[in-house]
């Protein structure tokens, strides 16, 4: 008897849920009229996930529909990218596009930038070069000069990352003997520098800020256009005579062919959400900086980045 009632209840709930679902699916008027899915290419918990959830919750307030964040990690993000590309281009599936958008096509993945609609860049996490507190080097040029005479090891978060690319490019442009050592994530890369297992680390601002504040790491340079609020007194690489910019940037994208009116609604919403104080409060403590570009500007920027990575990763 008891199982019978439970069964009946389950069916009743399921039926109610389906009615509610179909009801909303039929109401097709102005965009958006139903829930939007926001695909994140990384597991819950990291910087991509944090930024995505923050922008999604601000866009929710603006668009008046729910935005469901869905994590589809795997294969350097390409599992998520391919999934989004295959969805209907109606604006109801969007996702977080990280710096890998400019990288994966250069490391053997089946990836075409034309498969997507670009809706706007929202953030940038600049790369920094840091050395242990007891390191003899205090400026970027001291470090480079030393590396021109002897081999120096520089840890990073993983092969074919923006962080590894920074070390490679620094070596190539200055003729320094730098050995990039990829780790499994930013935190172990920073730990290797703290423990003096490597001579330096290239990492995100968020991963190095703690150790910098405690004085256990010296940050020699920031690879960005401007100085970073989390690293007072640290000069950019350009100010020190090395004109190099690298960052783990990110934005919002959808499948190719989103109609212009829907695209305009989403772009406007993203621009508005990316400027809210709530969004800034969610990302800046992790060392991420706001960096807005329109969809078209971002698409052009990705093309130049991709050309640069093609050169580096060759």
């Amino acid at each position, binding site marked *: 008897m008891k199982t019978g009632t439970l069964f009946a209840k389950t069916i009743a709930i399921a039926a109610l849920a389906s009615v509610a679902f179909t009801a909303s699916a039929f109401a097709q008027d102005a965009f958006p009229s139903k829930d939007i899915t926001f695909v994140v290419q990384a597991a*819950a918990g*990291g910087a991509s996930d944090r930024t995505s959830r923050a922008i999604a919750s601000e866009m929710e307030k603006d668009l008046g529909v729910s935005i469901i964040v869905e994590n589809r*990690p795997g294969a350097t993000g390409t599992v998520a990218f391919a999934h989004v590309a295959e969805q209907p281009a109606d604006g109801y599936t969007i996702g977080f596009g990280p710096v890998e958008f400019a990288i994966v096509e250069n490391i053997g*993945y089946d990836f075409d930038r034309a498969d997507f609609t670009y809706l706007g860049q929202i953030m940038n996490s600049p790369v920094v070069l840091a050395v242990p507190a007891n390191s003899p080097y205090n400026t970027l040029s001291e470090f480079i000069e030393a590396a021109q005479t002897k081999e120096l090891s520089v840890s990073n978060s993983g092969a074919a990352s923006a962080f590894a690319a920074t070390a490679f490019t620094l070596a190539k442009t200055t003729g320094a003997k730098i050995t990039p050592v990829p780790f*499994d994530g930013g935190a*172990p890369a920073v730990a*290797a520098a703290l423990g003096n297992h490597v001579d330096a680390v290239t990492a995100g601002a968020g991963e190095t800020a703690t*150790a910098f504040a405690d004085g256990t790491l010296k940050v020699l340079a920031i690879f960005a256009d401007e100085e970073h609020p989390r690293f007072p007194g640290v000069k950019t690489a350009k100010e020190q005579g090395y004109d190099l910019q690298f960052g783990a940037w990110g934005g919002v994208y959808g499948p190719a062919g989103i109609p212009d009116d829907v695209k305009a609604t989403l772009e406007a919403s993203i621009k508005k959400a990316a400027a809210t104080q709530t969004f800034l409060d*969610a990302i800046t403590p992790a060392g991420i900086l706001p960096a807005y570009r329109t969809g078209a500007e971002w698409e052009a920027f990705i093309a130049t980045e991709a050309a640069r990575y093609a050169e580096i990763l060759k």
Partner: protein
Amino acid sequence: MNALLDGILAVLEPTVMLCMGAGVIIGMLVGMFPGITATMAVALASGFTMTLDPVQGLAVLLTIYVAANFGDRIPSILINTPGTPASIATTFDGYPMAKNGRAGLALIVSALVSAIGIIASMVLFAFASVPLAQLALKFGPSEMFAVVILAMTIMISISSKSIAKGLLAGVIGLTIATIGRDPITGDARFTFGIRDLNGGLDFIAVIIGLFGIAELFDQLLTHRQFKIKPISALGRWWPTKSEYKQIVKPTGIAGLVGLVVGIIPGAGGDIAGLLGWDRAKAASKNKAEYGKGSIEGIAASDVASSATLGGSLTTTMALGIPGDSVMAVMIGSMIVWGIQPGPSLFVNQPSLVVTITAIMVLATLITLAINLVRMPMMVKLLDMPVHYIWATVLVFCLVGTYATTNNMFTVIVMLVFGVIGVILKRSGIPASPIVLGLILGPLAESNLRRSLLIDGPAGLVGKPISATLISLALIAIVVSLAAPIIARRRAKQAAAAPTN
């Protein structure tokens, strides 16, 4: 003294207690669900705790962390399916105990020693975090490589029936571990153009497949239906006085192993559980019992893996370097709350350190109490007809695995390894060394190659910690290979003796 009082008072607030209650419920459910990890639960919960007070938020997140660690053991013991890699070693003796009708005893012992492990590690956290964290930094790539090699020697001791078959399984594990992207150059290896293989095989899917699904398929394929029930009876709950005495030594030895491994960044509950079980076995008088349902074995594996919790908190709080993936998510939340982990935390906010310790200890005690009290309810659950139990297990495994990546490919991997698991089972090849190879292989490879990049071959033998650990590994291999030969020779002599 003020910091101590302030820290403890902060936890005793009603809202904080309420948060801990929520954390216990979420954590226990998550732990029991194979595939759903504490990391996922904490990551999702952190979305909601962001707006809370730091202490309230920490109460929810840390309690999930603790409660999931307890819940994790239950499917390992009852259905041979580790909820997360941390409880792989729990299956060695937990499931055989359950099959022998001693599931109740296994569950109680596991809960008791897990609590001991966590509390002991929190004592270390409270008093010695800063110096221990400095020790943790000594573990670079070459030291990590040595730790992993030492852990790999366990492949021999868990292959109790046939060393050859155990090592064969280990090689299978190491081989499938190379699928995916090269850790240093980023090149694709053995992906056969399949995009989903680029990230390598999801080891949670492989574990659930090889253990849970394989067991289930095996049962379904057996013509004499359900001859072996999943759990026929739970049996006696509480250990006898002599059993308590019996578990003291393995708990002590494995607990120490867990405390040490916990401090090492990158080595977590899985490696600790395996090493703890192995060291306790080596020191035991009843070696032969291990792996066949030894109460000592389950005490050793679970105290060791639970004792890593305080260690990962130590590196997280004292260095700002997450000790495991749950802690990586926690750091994100703490930064938003304005708590900056690092050595200065212990100087500037000692009361917060006390609060964290108090939350962890209290969460452990509450979860232990619930675990001990609600066991009789589980008896009722297991009174269900066997086919309902297996159906539930299958649904749990499918849903849990899908939830790890939201990708059907992961579910297919699980089912394929379920089939492989049945074939291996019927050929007498053990599954545990495969999982060991899959988890330890990439760690060994990437750390070896990093170490070679940095210092060349000299880095491995020239550093005291790695040189010591590699020597220990060599000794372990020689001893475990020589032991059966010596035993056989002795047996021969003993057989020959009476005729003389």
